[in-house]
């Protein structure tokens, strides 16, 4: 019996990404995440090839699966046609389906992403919108962004955008009918259900941790997951 493995196998990305690993390490060698985190894509394949549910469950609850940046550099190099990056995507999907993501510091961050990128997709029709990118949340954007953000309409206008306007163009207002369509797409295909699961499991976790996350004004948990860093992600160890 290997329930989790079978669940993973339902994901086409998993079937596409896992052929047979020969442990050569070409993926880990050039993986940006392996350079900065305690992470080896090779180990992911090693574990998955065991089809051992207890090891897979541990993986789904760990920080490990959240280190990858999905740059897919590993895909170019694998001599066996495996795609560790795709496997990570399948693992992350399952981890969210089962609520295991809240068991790790890096996994818990999914709520922060859902409440920004996820929200913006449905609200603006794009993953980002400049008025939402707050300089105090993004100090690395520098003084130039502060200036731009302060003068957003004038700057976007100067650069030829159709800022919040009708018709085509940069940063236009997406027509409501189009936003309705993408909402329905999210509903029909499981996108909304994914969002709800992220909320629901996070709420449980927040309660367990004694933190609030009831609404958008009361966001102790959000702040916590957005900034928490145990500092335990980068050490060199284990094989």
């Amino acid at each position, binding site marked *: 019996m290997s329930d989790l493995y079978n669940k993973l196998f339902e994901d086409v990305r998993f079937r596409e990404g896992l052929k047979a690993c020969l442990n050569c390490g070409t993926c880990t060698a050039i993986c940006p995440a*392996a*350079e*900065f*985190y*305690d992470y080896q894509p090779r180990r992911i394949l090693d574990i998955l090839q065991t089809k051992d549910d207890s090891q897979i469950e541990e993986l789904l609850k760990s920080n490990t699966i959240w280190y990858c940046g999905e740059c897919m550099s590993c895909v170019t190099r694998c001599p066996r046609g495996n795609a560790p990056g795709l496997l990570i995507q399948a693992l992350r999907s399952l981890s969210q389906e089962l609520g295991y993501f809240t068991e790790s510091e890096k996994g818990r961050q999914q709520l922060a992403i859902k409440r920004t990128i996820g929200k913006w997709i449905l609200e603006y029709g794009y993953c980002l919108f400049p008025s939402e990118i707050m300089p105090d949340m993004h*100090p*690395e954007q520098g003084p130039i962004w502060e200036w731009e953000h302060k003068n957003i309409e004038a700057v976007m206008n100067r650069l030829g955008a159709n800022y919040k306007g009708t018709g085509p163009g940069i940063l236009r207002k997406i027509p409501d009918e189009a936003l309705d369509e993408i909402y329905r797409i999210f509903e029909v295909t499981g996108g909304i259900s994914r969002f709800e699961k992220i909320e629901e499991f996070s709420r449980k976790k927040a309660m367990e941790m004694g933190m609030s996350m009831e609404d958008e004004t009361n966001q102790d948990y959000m702040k916590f997951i957005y*900034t928490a*860093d145990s500092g335990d992600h*980068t*050490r*060199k*160890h*284990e*094989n």
Partner: protein
Amino acid sequence: MKSFGYKISEDRQIDFDANDREVTGFINAVEPSIRLCMGCGSCTATCSAGHFTDFNIRRVHTFMQRGEIHQLKKEIMKCMLCGKCQLVCPRGVNLRNLILSIHTALEKSGI
């Protein structure tokens, strides 16, 4: 310097050219048998310390050869010098002397 709430980290890669391999050179000279390791892992499989800690003597050997000296200090304290590793090594590597030589080398270089 400004704080942004996160740090720029050094990468975890073994940077072979940046590593100081003086200790490596010393140990290879005093215990030439360590060159013969073929990475089979028999030593680690039988290791008494490895059963109770995350000590991995095969990896200690590899770290030593790569000049990853800072990895060694904490690790070698876990070895109990029981010598079982040496009994099973198919290449006759003197692993006890590897550990002892690392001790000596680290002391010598003041690490």
